[in-house]
């Protein structure tokens, strides 16, 4: 049976089709105002990629910020559960899953079956999620996808002193005015974000096998900074980090 997982995120909707533990198709679209509409669109795309008809799919389970908004789903699972299931499916030894999304980030401790044992979520603060890098990329006048590669060229580490996203933005501007290299500022931005994320991870403990998932894990600048902040070289990043939640939801749909 083909099961479907839909991760209705704050910024994008991700769909994954699975059959017998294999991914058959997937798609990602931007979340519009109408989350259900975006979910439908993503589902259509995934079906197309898999060469399947709508009738071919069995149960649909949603997760993510808009998981309750999808009327055609059978049910929904929490973001933590989906992340843990997906991560353990991809990396069976994973016990700590760090999910950094556009609007929210979370750290999850789980067991070998993907059962959530403990979790922490970043509180209502943009400085601990992808929204932070977005705002800072704007201030730096750099496209978001270039911010990460840019920060890898940094030659020095300067602290991002402002802990709040609004203040950080004006600090970035001050740094630009004081002729600080953009690459160094980009690194400071990622250091600021990863310091927030690591602080959260410490709540569940920083001791077992880590996997980074969520859209922000695409950003090499963040990943580099995260490794430096936790002092670990061995941090795995999921190959397609933004699809892990949807995979987890598809697995839940098979249960």
């Amino acid at each position: 049976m083909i099961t479907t997982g839909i991760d209705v995120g704050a910024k994008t909707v991700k769909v994954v089709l699975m059959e017998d533990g294999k991914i058959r198709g997937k798609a990602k679209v931007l979340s519009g105002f109408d989350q259900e509409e975006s979910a439908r669109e993503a589902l259509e795309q995934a079906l197309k990629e898999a060469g399947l008809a709508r009738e071919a799919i069995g149960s649909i389970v949603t997760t993510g910020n808009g998981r309750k908004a999808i009327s055609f789903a059978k049910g929904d699972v929490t973001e933590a559960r989906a992340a843990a299931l997906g991560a353990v499916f991809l990396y069976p030894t994973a016990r700590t899953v760090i999910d950094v999304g556009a609007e929210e980030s979370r750290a999850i401790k789980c067991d070998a079956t993907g059962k959530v044992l403990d979790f922490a979520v970043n509180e209502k603060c943009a400085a601990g999620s992808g929204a932070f890098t977005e705002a800072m990329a704007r201030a730096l006048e750099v496209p978001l996808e270039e911010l990460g590669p840019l920060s890898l060229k940094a030659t020095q580490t300067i602290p991002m002193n402002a802990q709040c996203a609004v203040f950080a933005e004006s600090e970035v501007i001050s740094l630009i005015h004081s002729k600080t290299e953009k690459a160094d500022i980009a690194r400071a931005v990622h250091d600021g974000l990863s310091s927030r994320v690591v602080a959260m991870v410490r709540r569940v403990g920083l001791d077992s096998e880590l996997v980074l998932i969520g859209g922000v894990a695409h950003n090499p600048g963040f990943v580099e900074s995260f490794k430096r902040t936790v002092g670990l070289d061995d941090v795995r990043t999921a190959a397609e980090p933004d699809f892990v939640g949807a995979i987890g939801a598809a697995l839940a749909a098979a249960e």
Partner: protein
Amino acid sequence: MIEQFKEWYVNRHAYARQWKERTGGKVIGTFCTYVPEEILVAANMLPARILGSHEPQDVTEPHIFGMFCPFCRDSLAQGLKGRFNYLDGVVLAHSCIHFRQTFNSWRIHLPVEFSYYIPMPNTVQTDHARPYHREEVEKFKKAIEEYIGRPLTDSDIDRGIASADRNRRLLRKAYEYRKLDNPPLTGEEAMFMATTSQFIDKEEHSDAVEATLNSFANRKLPRETGIRLMAVGSENDDAEFFKMVESVGSTVVIDEQCAGSRYFWNESTANGDRLARIANRYLDRPPCPVKDYPTHSRFQHVLNLAKDYRAQGAIIMQEKFCDPHEGDNPRLKKYLEENGIPTLSLEFDSTNPLGPFRIRVEAFLETIRGEELF
């Protein structure tokens, strides 16, 4: 001379380690500025105040929730990062709930040989606080005696009192120079001098202050004094901030902060026996707003300082989430302004975002100068 203080400030941990090696004495971490240091000095210990580093950190999240002040978290981070691992003991004299968490997490997770909590009165204005606090100082003394395994003699205590008072007296003298039209020291330098007195051996520090005082006669700063400012607020040993403020046409000539004048302002006076003398000194000092009840006795003191040092404006430095100060500041601000001292309120989160602050400080200085903006 005066450079010594900055060096101590920057290398405080190396100093403490060397002190320990050199003297064989115990180093006791003090939390806030209400611990009766006289007793520690009497026991040949080094009281070293726990302060933060003003660097971003990510280690306190499991211990102190983010709604508590950044200073208490920054300070705990220093412990968790192992920077204070030379401490033999920790002591807190009851202050605010924020910093009590630093102390508690510290004694839970960073075990030391000696830890002690002094239930220092919160209402320092009541007469009943005096006999009560004397008893508590006595209990503390006994605990220290038990720890070191010998009684503290009257002459030990007298030495502790004399040493603490000498340091206070000298710091007051140094602050006197800030009243001059062209003070021989900047606010940043004064901050280094005052703050280091909280973790450097008292006699050594006093000697350095004395030597610095002697050098003032010939010291002329190659800078304009500019607008004379006062710094009022919570725990703010924000050196970078003072440096920035003094780089844009002003000089901080006086402070009312626990990293500065509130800590050393008054000497002890003979009123009762030795322990009463010590206890009362802490009840009579310029209070932290956490202890200033039922009236705002502190306001008059702040205004007096502003007048005595001819401050043209006051920067109210508010540590974010610091309830005691937040509970005073709107009225304090109004009080100062009604008495002719314009104010600028800034919220600090222990790190120093200098860019945004510079804009505000410059605008404040412009209004004091009465400059037309356009």
